[in-house]
């Protein structure tokens, strides 16, 4: 069991790191895009007025 433990721990740690990393990166990028979209929408409204 001891010799197999590092592989089992590696699998669980690896999957969590990748999945949570992906969630963090995508959400971060999405909120950045939304902010940019909000700012640009206001700029377009001003231009149209």
């Amino acid at each position, binding site marked *: 069991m001891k010799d*197999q433990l590092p*592989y089992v721990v590696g699998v669980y740690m690896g999957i969590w790191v990748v999945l949570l990393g992906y969630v963090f990166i995508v959400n971060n990028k*999405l909120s950045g895009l939304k902010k940019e979209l909000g700012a640009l929408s206001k700029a*377009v409204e001003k231009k149209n007025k």
Partner: protein
Amino acid sequence: MIMKKAITILLGIGSVLLLTGIAYAFLVAPIAVDPNTGKEVFHQKILYFHVPVAETSLVSFILAAVFGALFLYKRERKYDFLSLAAVELGFMYGLLVEMTGMMWDKAAWGVWWQWEPRLTTYLILMLMYSGYFVMRSSIGEDSTKARFGAVYAIIAAVNVPLTFFAIRLIPSIHPILFDSSGAGLEGPLLVAFLVSMFGMTFFYVSLLLTRYQMFGVSEELDILKNQIGG
């Protein structure tokens, strides 16, 4: 706003189920015993995450093909976004499958890689989908990119059933779950597996919707940028 709530709920349910699955796998489910040697096989615990990740990646590639077909039929941009998001996620899950599979190989068979049917067909599948990204990035116009992407996703998905059935049709040392004789797992082992499976599915759907939302916002942004530029 509704989409954001749905994503948060799905992500929450997925995370709770995955953590429950891990807790159940390690604290409740007993260590499996090799029927041939009678020895305990601790590396079998890898299965509770490796298989759900693998199934999710294959389902994702099938979904990419379905959305690709819908795009070709309806010509609505949202289906291209969904197809691309599904390929991206399928590929990311696929990399996890390769990584965890290699760890299983090393723990179970003492080597990092075996040229057996499942690993080989899965590697071919991953190489095919890496071509999808190369193809998309080499095309400039969005509509052509979407059309070619849809066709590629449909053609590449042919490899999915081949990968799934490879170990059922060709003799292999890769373990088989869910064949004609049953699930291959019983009692607490099956519960831990199913909880992880559902958790991974919820998690996946939340990621797919997040990525889809991101493409939509990017496109809106491009339209506005063009308006300002014009």
